[in-house]
Every structure is written in structure tokens, then in C-alpha cells.
């Protein structure tokens, strides 16, 4: 399932409630992988006090659904949940949840990673940061998800 949230959401509650409601999964999955992306208060050397996340209603949901479906063609996913925040966001608030349920852990890790990286490169979301010292700026490009921190 794919959800767009214009308000703050609790990723842990979302995953727990989704798993609880999906009774058909009971006993079927051995692995649950959750990824939560949370807003930082810094980026590219600047203090960031908030941001606005713009999206394309209709296309964004469709892009996310396509990404989850494609992952399901590559890995034996029992179920998946993607929740993505939009609108005005503050540091510390979750931006995205990717939850994947599979029989075995390797598939859960790999499928969730794939969904997350595909989401970053293909789903229509755009970030405008509110900088503490320099006003607003659009984020020009994504950081590489496989890049290690210094």
C-alpha cells in the first residue's frame, strides 16, 4: 500500500497497524524490514529549520505504486507499505516509511533498499529547505544512497 501524508505520522504505529490489519500475512512472513527517513536539521553545511515537500498528486502515488510492484516482481514480497510525508516538515519529523514483509531476511533488506533508492530517483517529490541564515533554497539533487558519510 502507498500513502501520502500531509500531516506528521508515526511510522512505527503505521507499520504495526498495517501488519495487524493484514491478517492474511500471519504466520507467512519471517522478516520485516522497516526504513524510516527523518528530517535533519543540517544539510550541505547549513542549519535547516524546516522544509516544504512538494509532490504531484496522482503521479506521485502512481510512481510509488509502480516501484512497489516492480520490487514485487524481483523479490518474493508478501506485502509492502510506503508512507511519504508532504507539505511543511520540521527537523525530527519522519519523511518516509518503507516497510517490507517477506519470508526470508535477505529479500526484505534488498527489496526495501531497492524501493527506497527507486523512490529517491523516480518519485516526484521536491524539497525546499528553510535555512536558518540564508532564506529558502530548492534542493537541486539527491545524495547517492550508497555514498558513505565522511
Amino acid at each position, binding site marked *: 500500500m502507498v500513502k501520502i501524508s500531509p500531516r506528521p505520522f508515526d511510522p512505527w504505529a503505521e507499520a504495526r497497524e498495517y501488519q495487524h490489519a493484514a491478517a492474511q500475512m500471519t504466520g507467512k512472513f519471517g522478516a520485516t524490514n522497516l526504513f524510516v*527517513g527523518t528530517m535533519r536539521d543540517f544539510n550541505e553545511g547549513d542549519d535547516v529549520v524546516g522544509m516544504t515537500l512538494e509532490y*504531484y498528486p496522482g*503521479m506521485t502515488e*502512481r510512481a510509488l505504486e509502480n516501484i512497489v510492484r516492480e520490487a514485487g516482481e524481483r523479490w518474493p514480497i508478501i506485502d509492502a507499505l510506503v508512507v511519504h510525508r508532504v507539505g511543511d516538515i520540521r527537523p525530527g519529523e519522519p519523511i*518516509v516509511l518503507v516497510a517490507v514483509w517477506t519470508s526470508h531476511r535477505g529479500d526484505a533488506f534488498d527489496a526495501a533498499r531497492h524501493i527506497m533508492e527507486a*523512490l*529517491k530517483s523516480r518519485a*516526484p*517529490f*521536491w524539497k525546499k529547505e528553510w535555512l536558518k541564515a540564508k532564506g529558502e533554497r530548492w534542493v537541486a539533487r539527491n545524495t547517492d544512497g550508497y555514498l558513505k558519510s565522511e
Partner: protein
Amino acid sequence: MSIKVRYFASLKERIGRAEEDAAIAEPVTAKALWRQCVPELPPPEQILVAINLEYADWDSLVRDGDEVAFFPPVTGG
């Protein structure tokens, strides 16, 4: 024939509008539609195109009733 044209994020701010309706006499490429709607700006290389909510090429044909979106590289998640 009428096309709904939408702009997003920094591109929307740069050209000063979020959407408009464009009249075309026959199917045209996305690039030709851009030139018609945004004559003051050459099609920026990094700008992406979507037709009816799916990614498309600048050379894709746009037809009556289509919704076309132009937007910068995505940065969400």
C-alpha cells in the same frame, strides 16, 4: 485541441505559474509544447517531462486532452 500543462517546484517559481491550458491544432512533441508555452526559455536540459502521469521523452507526442507536466529532478524521500 486542449492540453493541460503543469509546472512544479523551482520551475514553477522560475516561470511564474503552476498550470495553464494550451491550444494545439494537431499532436505535437513535448518539446514543441514547451516552446509554445514557455517561449522565453529554451527547454532546460535537466527538466523532466510527464504525460498523463507517466515519465515521457521530450520527443513524445502530446494529444488532445493530455495532461503534460514539466518539472526539475526529484529530490524527495
